[in-house]
């Protein structure tokens, strides 16, 4: 038994090592200057450019137009992440509510249509989606970045499964208590779904945060750039004798990681509850 426990810990520690080591290395490297990194690659010690690098990344305007700095990108990323997460939760909860609680023609057909879109990744519909957004004049807007991706088959599916597990009698009790469709949703279903909402929120926030392809297509204005794009942008300035600012790229990568980590840490207890709790 004892041996097994030691083995368990060794395996777990190895897992932690593989997950954390690259992040830690990136952090260490981000505290050196670009020349050092270019000369000798990844750094294994703490450098002395920590404050300077992070300050530069956050405040110094970069890009071609010199209009965008780290803080702007951070703001854009947050808008995208929260817009995605909140939008997806609202839309998919309403969709699931309609599918589970209302009898309308082709309800299950609708559900399976939504469900089958799970099989189609964004890339499949990216051209038609772009065409629509472009013709609506939504290029270079937050609306254009968020709305076209807001419908979520995954979210709808999870909420549908959850709603179907809510006992029928609860709806009937609410009907006798004089709660209409809207009141039942707000007063009963939403509070009951709290843990589920937290779980979906984490998944969708991280998903939105990490979006790269769609924001790249839909925004040409640099003031709409997100952190994830910014990292790429820094490494692209390979003009003439200039060397890429590896230090800044690393710092930006570390910064880009922080918000999702914070969200996960805050919501994780709810997240786990949402996945395991069966007491309704």
């Amino acid at each position: 038994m004892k041996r097994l426990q030691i083995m368990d810990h060794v395996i777990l520690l190895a897992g932690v090592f593989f997950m954390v080591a690259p992040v830690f290395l990136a952090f260490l490297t981000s505290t050196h200057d670009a020349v050092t990194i270019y000369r000798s690659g990844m750094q294994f010690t703490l450098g002395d450019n920590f404050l300077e690098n992070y300050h530069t990344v956050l405040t110094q305007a970069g890009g071609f137009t010199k209009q965008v700095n780290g803080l702007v990108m951070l703001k854009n990323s947050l808008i995208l992440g929260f817009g995605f997460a909140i939008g997806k939760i609202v839309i998919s909860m309403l969709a699931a509510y309609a599918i589970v609680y209302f009898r309308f023609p082709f309800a299950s057909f609708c559900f399976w249509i939504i469900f089958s879109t799970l099989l189609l990744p964004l890339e499949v519909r990216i051209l038609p989606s772009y065409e629509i957004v472009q013709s609506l004049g939504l290029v270079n807007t937050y609306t254009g970045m968020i709305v076209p991706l807001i419908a979520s088959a995954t979210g709808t599916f999870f909420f549908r499964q959850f709603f179907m597990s809510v006992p029928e009698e609860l709806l009937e009790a609410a009907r006798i208590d004089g709660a209409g469709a809207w009141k039942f949703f707000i007063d009963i279903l939403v509070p009951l779904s709290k843990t589920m909402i937290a779980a979906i929120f984490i998944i969708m926030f991280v998903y939105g945060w990490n979006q790269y392809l769609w924001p790249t297509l839909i925004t040409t204005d640099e003031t709409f750039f997100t952190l994830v794009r910014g990292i790429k942008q820094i490494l692209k300035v390979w003009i003439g004798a200039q060397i890429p600012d590896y230090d800044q790229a690393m710092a930006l990568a570390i910064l880009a990681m922080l918000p999702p980590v914070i969200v996960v840490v805050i919501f994780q207890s709810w997240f786990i509850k949402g996945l395991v709790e069966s007491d309704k």
Partner: protein
Amino acid sequence: MATITLDTVRKVYAGNVEAVKGVSVDIDDGEFIVLVGPSGCGKSTLLRMIAGLEDITTGDISIGDRIVNKVDPADRDIAMVFQNYALYPHMTVYNNLAYGLRNRKIAKDEIDRRVKEAARILEIGDYLERKPRMLSGGQRQRVAMGRAIVREPAAFLFDEPLSNLDAKLRVQMRVEIKRLQKALGTTSVYVTHDQLEAMTLADRLIVLNGGAIEQIGAPVDVYDKPASTFVASFIGSPAMNLVPVRSENGRLQAESGAGLDAPNLHGSDRYLLGIRPEHLEISGEKANGTDGLSMEFTVNVLEPVGAESYIYGQLDGAGPEIVVRAPSHARYDPGTVLYLNATAADIHFFDAENGRRIEG
């Protein structure tokens, strides 16, 4: 407070399944009605139609003087207690009770008064700030009742409210529901499959079978004069003994052969003869009288239940199985032959073809 009237109410589900077949009944103001029957007999459907949770296919349901066929459940002035309580898990007990009242835009202090009053009656005052999951089954049951009481409705509807409780608690809550209903004087419709619950609670019983009413009546009447073999075997525990008999020289004997002797009181050739286990008297020898019934009975199994024992055996060693009640100290070995006697007044006669009672 109100009367409830059902007028040839029918429920037909998709696929032409007729769950309720033209039920008519008048429920008096303040009456405690129990709908009883085996599962699938339509009793829950009927209750849910009164509540407004199921559509009525044809017929009319009135509460008070108003036909409520198209009225929303919330506007029918009824309150329902569900089998699994259906308490809102995320709300405190207080809010569970108050929720329906708030939706009705009742003044805050009036809500508070009613909730406190219900809590006092049901002795749940100490739990008002707890969530349902922190309560035991019995306490949840009380909260569910409280939610019905605070509404001060015209009628209570109970859908097997005690079947999730353990046996001891069930008896206790049964007494309490009865007491509460009498104290409040609210018309009540109660659904159960438990004939004991039905007998003890009801002012009047409605025995349902296959979506139709078999019999309506006070519990004692239903027990004493079951309208059909279905009611006879459903009400009373153990069930009434039913023996197919035929007429022979003006007397009755079992279809299966000898072993039974009874007077033919109604002049038919064939009957189902019914006799309750508690009306049979055990005797060591054959009775000589000819007024009543006597049977020759071979013991198979003795089943002591404490206060009394039930003896299962067969008529004449080969005929249909018969149950008889015996004193708790009775000891009979399997294979023992006994004679069972009963007076003519305790014998029930049913039509051999359709099972309806033949009244004498």
